[in-house]
């Protein structure tokens, strides 16, 4: 088992390294010159050249690539062309907002998706099944963007933008607003943060909840038709015991698989959700950077997302090991 883990960790590191190189090269091969975007219509060749030299973007790609590992180890992701500040520092500021949003979305999506899937499988062909599957179909087909606007229109008393009311932002020391407000016992602030968090989290949770419910349904249907459950039913086990004690644990591997994958996908979903709800997280930071052609930010953000995605997958594999003894044995 340990060797399996070691191999997976090494594979993950290699994947991140390949992603880093690909992102690095592709950003540099983009047409145009990043300094020009900064200078806009007032560009003068000498100044563009000076800016490129100052940022080190004028050196050969290979030389820049050789320096990259050292820079990454120092936590240096470069300087934003547009805002002129350290990309690593800005990412560190924005990641807490994305984490708060994504974790809330996961906490909503996983139980909701599993419950809908289980209900759908248990009452197959009846109204709960149709309702859950209609919800799932809508969930995967309605764009987050549109859903966000719909939610704002429906819930007219909920805030539409930001993490707290603008006049309250000075009340926070850290970037984990909700956690900080709860831990410091400022419940009015926590309530405000929660109200701001709810609509974007629901919008973000919809796709993963829908996907998880569909997978749960099919996985549960397969397990429910197995012999050992028929035996359990014959022996008079209650429905609750059959579902939660016997069926669900055995149906859980594909569910964990898809749930883990969805956690990775949440990061890309967060880009749209954060844009619609003006949520000051990493996703919105990157969207703005793409619009401003701020290549250093795009590169840094892409690296972080790649690393987070690979980490999520690694944790998923570890979860498999824990859940399924067969994998442990094989590995």
């Amino acid at each position, binding site marked *: 088992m340990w060797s399996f883990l070691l191999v997976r960790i090494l594979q993950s590191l290699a994947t991140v390294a390949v992603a880093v190189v690909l992102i690095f090269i592709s950003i540099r091969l983009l*047409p*145009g010159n990043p300094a*020009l*975007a*900064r*200078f*806009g*219509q*007032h*560009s*003068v*060749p000498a*100044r*563009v050249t*000076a*800016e490129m030299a*100052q940022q080190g973007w004028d050196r050969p790609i290979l030389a820049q690539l050789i320096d990259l590992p050292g820079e990454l180890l120092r936590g240096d992701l470069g300087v934003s062309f*547009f*805002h*002129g*500040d350290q990309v690593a520092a*800005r990412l560190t*500021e*924005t990641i807490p907002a994305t984490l708060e949003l994504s974790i809330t979305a996961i906490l909503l999506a996983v139980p909701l998706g599993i419950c809908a899937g289980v209900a759908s499988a248990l009452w197959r062909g009846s109204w709960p099944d149709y309702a859950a599957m209609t919800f799932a179909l809508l969930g995967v087909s309605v764009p987050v963007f549109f859903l966000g*606007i719909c939610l*704002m*229109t429906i819930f*007219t008393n909920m*805030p*539409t*933008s*930001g*993490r707290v009311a*603008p*006049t309250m*932002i*000075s*009340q*926070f*020391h*850290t970037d*984990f607003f909700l*956690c*900080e407000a709860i*831990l*410091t*016992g*400022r419940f009015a602030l926590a309530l405000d943060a929660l109200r701001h968090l709810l609509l974007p989290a629901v919008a973000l949770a919809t796709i993963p909840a829908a996907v998880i419910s569909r997978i749960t349904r099919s996985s549960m249907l397969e397990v429910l038709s197995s012999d050992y459950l028929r035996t359990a039913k014959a022996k008079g086990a209650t429905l609750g015991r059959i579902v939660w004690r016997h069926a669900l644990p055995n149906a859980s591997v594909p569910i964990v698989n898809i749930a883990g994958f969805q956690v990775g996908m949440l990061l890309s979903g967060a880009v749209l959700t954060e*844009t*619609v*709800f*003006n949520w*000051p997280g990493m996703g*919105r*930071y990157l*969207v*703005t950077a793409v*619009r401003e*052609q701020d290549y250093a930010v795009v590169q840094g953000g892409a690296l972080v997302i790649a690393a987070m995605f690979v980490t999520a997958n690694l944790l998923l594999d570890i979860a498999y090991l824990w859940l399924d003894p067969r994998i442990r044995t094989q590995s």
Partner: protein
Amino acid sequence: MRSLLFCLIVSTFLGCGGPALPSNILIYGRGDDADRLDPIHTDIGESVTVMCNIYDTLVTYDEETLDLVPSLAESWSTSDDGLEWTFHLRKGVTFHDGTPLDADAVLFSLERLTVPMHPFVFDQVIPYVQSFEAIESVSAVDPLTVKVRLKRPTAAFLTTMAMFPASIVSPTAVKKYEGEFWKHPVGTGPFQFDSWNVNQQLTLLAFDDHWRGRPEIDGVIFLPVGESAVRVKQLLRGEIDIADNLPPAEIDSLSKNPEVIVQEKEGMNTGYLTMNNDKAPLDDQRIREAIWYAIDRDQLIKSAYSGHATKAVTLVPPTLWGSHSDLTDRDYDPAKAKQLLAAAAADGVPMPIRLQLFVMTDPRPYMQQPRQTAIFIKDSLAKVGIETEIVTNQNSQHFRRMTRGEHQLGLAGWTADMPDPDNFLYTLLDLDNINDVGGNNMSRYRSQKVHDLLAQAKVEMNQEKRAELYREAQEEIFADAPLVPLVHTSVRNVQSKAVSGYLLHPSSLTRLRLTKLAK
């Protein structure tokens, strides 16, 4: 993580965060965030919106018109040869950090803008440096008198001094924050900088000791909200007090809502269709005129601007002195267009004509719906037999490619940096401004006569004579038809009923000193 824990523990014991903001705060929702708050280092409109409330200039515009009035300079005079300008500063003005305003501060600010490799310039990006290149030297005569020496007489010099890059900054703050000054701006303006959470919110608080008196409101929070549909919802729910830069259709529907107030003022901008005069068949004047005749601009205004624009005949907007808007226009006349094309064909211009039309992706104030405008032009030209292919590029790439002259037709426009016809005619149509890097004469129009007139107007100090020169230049330009002026758009803003005293200014500067909030 350790710092997070530390902060949590500290804040648990202290029981609170930073000081609470006062209640009478205006919330200003807009599409984007500022970039840098150092006046010499930016040309981004969102930064200017903030900075014109933090800093003052020596001269400024009147509250409602484009007339120049005293600001930090109480009075000024110029030498007979127009080469030397003397500014007498206002007494008793202080910066937000307590530094007194004196001639040294003005000298410091203007030298940062004009002296190459100034020791207190930490970023080489000075977008407006060209606008101030006529300044030869600046000197302090006494603590409240500053003398500016010019390389040549410059008629628009005083107007240039009202531009935001000439804002007066606190030398103490620049020396203290060095390369980080743009994050900690200190001026003498009505509002002082409080905090900036990038892409989240930027907060200014009223400056109690402002020389014109404390602003009516306690402060303003600038909130960047990218989606205009969300800004509309926020305004209707009272989450923001002013919504900036909304699309025309949104403003039209809001204008019917009794809960909000829509302000409208004629802007100082021009949207136009540039035609690359260097490329065949657009090097033939008849083809350019035919294109002009083929576009029904009245209809374009209805379909792409919801009627909130005026038809342009010349580049200089009618709101600006020196505009020759009474030129006899080339009215929409497709038959005439076909005639001109036929005449050109008879002289050997190959037919049918196929042209590429360059279009930007994101709207600009003068081109609020670029895609719709492009489709309208494509259809209009198709009716007279010109085929058009629409080529869409991201905004900076669009202008970049057109500056290099890669286009045949292209959507373009200009919002004035300063209220002077020179800023439209010289910038957009002079032969000095044809180059691959930042030359704004994207039509590549070369007229020695127009160049001579514009050069003469630049150094003529009498405004009436200048206006006459500009009128003559506009007649020449109209006759040559190097581009098709399309529209001058209105500046529109939407605010909640709680906001009063905020006036849209024709310069498009957002000045919030007199704004009141009934909350």
